[in-house]
């Protein structure tokens, strides 16, 4: 604004240059936008779309597993669905959802006008639709989509058709998008905070994203390396993983899980961040143990790099190796426990109210902890060797991915949607959505613990008769869960179109900058003059 040297008084000058112009009209607004709010919205809609696509594949899987025998899909197709369900949900639905939250919230929460690299931000997003298209197009290539599992283990990946190449390029694009997005987030948080917003005053959500972004920068390139090695093994005569040429398929598993375990926390930490905003707001108390929360998050992030081989106890590693990874893994329970106890202590003697975001946060707290406990069970080598690749593992990671990350995403959307749209969602329908989601979630996945303990292997389209009852219950739950999410879609659309106007601060206990300093709905441009945080 000081670039115009003129005779105007400063106040007038300010007005001329920074008139609150709205967004451009039409489709090109979304293609060319550099506004963090627009980009956040696109991330969230993209994530929602992928959630439906991946969900339809999950329903196809549960449809086939409704009865023993092969009814609807041949085994190849079934494997393609399990693979694509995993890849789409992890990289297309959950990760973009939290990047969407980051885009919307981080600049508003730290009092910055926008992300540090606004154009790069646009590019990070627009890589995603192309990556998703490649993943979905792979179904229509000769041989179909790769049926190798979302972990893309060698040697199957070396044998697959061209659908595998589509998937490899999709992973490259997704990785590039994540890395660029993370660099943007780190730079924004470190360089663009409002005066007085010291690191230890930042909202917990911002802290968790700062740490997550570092995890992404460190872990995603390793995945890119692993799939690049697969690509060169397939087409350019290298033999990293091809045993026929002296390579080793187990090496792939090590490289993949070196990325894969931090990835688990890349998904979980922003979810922790959302919960750390929601629980204090509805307990009308500040977050208990803020500093310990920051240290616990950092400890989880560091530990996540030295526990990867607990995903592969059965490959035949020395017992010393198994013991190291077992102890390191159980150690993660300590900082995670710190977080869970802090959330509970935040609620302790708080003035609680149970609107939808809080319901999802409490649902998260209980079910995520349950998923953490089954994780502890699986971390023990002798138990894991029994349960490896059974439905117990499937149940475990869906408790942390669905009841953890997805519940937290729902909590975040219900929590912030008034600020984003200026309108309140339908509280009654929101609560119905919560209860349906909670009940059907447990119907799908709780029974899978029993199936896994009884020995039902994952990723197989058929099963012995003795598993039939629990599989039927699980499949019925899956369809119920799917329908409940259509209700969620309705709630969001209804909120945008017909919601009651929301006040500036609809939640009593919310105390971060977007609630205290900004009107509702948040204007297109915010904090062009940074606030001073006392």
């Amino acid at each position, binding site marked *: 604004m000081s670039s115009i040297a003129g005779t105007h008084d400063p106040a007038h000058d300010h007005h001329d240059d920074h008139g609150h112009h709205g967004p451009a009209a039409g489709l090109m607004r979304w293609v060319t936008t550099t506004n963090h709010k627009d980009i956040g919205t696109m991330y969230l809609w993209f994530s929602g779309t992928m959630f439906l696509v991946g969900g339809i594949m999950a329903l196809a899987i549960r449809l086939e597993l409704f009865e023993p025998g092969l009814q609807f899909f041949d085994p190849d197709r079934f494997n393609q669905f399990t693979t694509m369900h995993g890849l789409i949900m992890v990289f297309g639905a959950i990760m973009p959802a939290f990047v969407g939250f980051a885009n919307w919230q981080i600049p508003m929460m730290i009092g910055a006008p926008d992300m540090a690299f606004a154009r790069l931000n646009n590019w990070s997003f627009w890589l995603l639709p192309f990556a998703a298209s490649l993943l979905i197009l792979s179904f229509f290539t000769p041989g179909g989509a790769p049926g190798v599992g979302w972990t893309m283990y060698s040697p199957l990946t070396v044998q697959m058709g061209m659908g595998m190449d589509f998937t490899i390029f999709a992973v490259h694009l997704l990785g590039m998008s994540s890395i660029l997005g993370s*660099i943007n987030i*780190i730079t924004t948080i470190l*360089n*663009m905070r409002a005066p007085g917003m010291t690191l230890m005053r930042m909202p917990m959500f911002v802290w968790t994203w700062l740490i997550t972004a570092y995890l992404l920068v460190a872990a995603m*390139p390793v995945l890119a390396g692993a799939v690049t090695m697969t690509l060169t093994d397939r087409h350019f005569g290298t033999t990293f993983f091809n045993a026929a040429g002296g390579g080793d398929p187990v090496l792939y598993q*090590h490289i993949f899980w070196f990325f894969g375990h931090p990835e688990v926390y890349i998904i979980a930490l922003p979810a922790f961040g959302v919960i750390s905003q929601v629980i204090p707001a509805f307990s009308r108390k500040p977050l208990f143990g803020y500093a310990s929360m920051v240290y616990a998050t950092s400890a989880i992030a560091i530990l996540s790099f030295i526990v990867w081989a607990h995903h592969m106890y059965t490959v035949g590693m020395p017992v010393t190796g198994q013991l190291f990874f077992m102890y390191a893994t159980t150690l993660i329970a300590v900082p995670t426990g710190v977080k869970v106890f802090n959330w509970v202590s935040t609620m302790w003697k708080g003035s609680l109210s149970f609107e939808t975001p809080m319901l999802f946060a409490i649902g998260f707290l209980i079910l995520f902890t349950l998923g953490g406990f089954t994780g502890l069970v699986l971390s023990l080598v002798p138990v894991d060797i029994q349960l490896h690749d059974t439905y117990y593992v499937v149940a475990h990671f869906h408790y942390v991915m669905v009841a953890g990350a997805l519940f937290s995403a729902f909590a975040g959307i219900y929590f912030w949607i008034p600020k984003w749209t200026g309108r309140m969602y339908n509280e009654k329908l929101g609560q119905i959505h919560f209860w349906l989601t909670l009940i059907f979630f447990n119907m799908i996945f709780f029974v899978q613990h029993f199936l896994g303990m009884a020995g039902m292997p994952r990723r197989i389209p058929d099963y012995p008769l003795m598993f039939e009852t629990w599989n039927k219950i699980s499949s019925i739950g899956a369809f119920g869960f799917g329908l409940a999410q259509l209700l969620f879609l309705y709630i969001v659309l209804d909120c945008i179109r017909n919601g009651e106007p929301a006040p500036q601060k609809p939640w009593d206990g919310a105390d971060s900058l977007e609630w205290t300093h900004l009107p509702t709905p948040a204007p297109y441009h915010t904090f062009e003059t940074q606030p001073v945080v006392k």
Partner: protein
Amino acid sequence: MSTRAENKKLFVRLAVIAAGMFGFGYALVPFYYEICRAWQVNLLDKPDAAPVNTQVDTSRTVTIELDSNLHKLDWKFRPLVNHVSVHPGELTTVEYEVVNTRKTAVTGQAVASYGPQFAGEYFKKLQCFCFTQQTLAPGEVRRMPVTFVVDPRLPKDVTSIALSYTFFEVDGRGGRS
């Protein structure tokens, strides 16, 4: 320094970390082999087990029952003999015959199973039509051998082993696609 310049500096640093981690993924390859050597595991140039003496155990006889099945595949598939008697350790060859009754080429894959199940561990196939996919021209008749040895360590109470093959159609190769 302006925020813009500082942002650029941080961008370059983080991009270097990302590029370094890409390289680190590749560095894990030699690191993995070094760890394997240090722990004496996964040594590819050493045999898994010492060779053992494979004398024919003529003191007992095991009956091998031959069985054939088709899974949703309208071929004809049968063993040429229904059973053979072998001594453990003795190299034996039996033959199966398969006929493609369709008017198109069809590819099938045979999968073996054993009764009792644990006998599979002692039933060593040296050559088998189940090792590869079999593509049959329309109307083709093919005789396919199985060469095997029954391990002399087979528990004494097992006097008969059922060897059963099931042919599955391989989609997209030959016939239906």
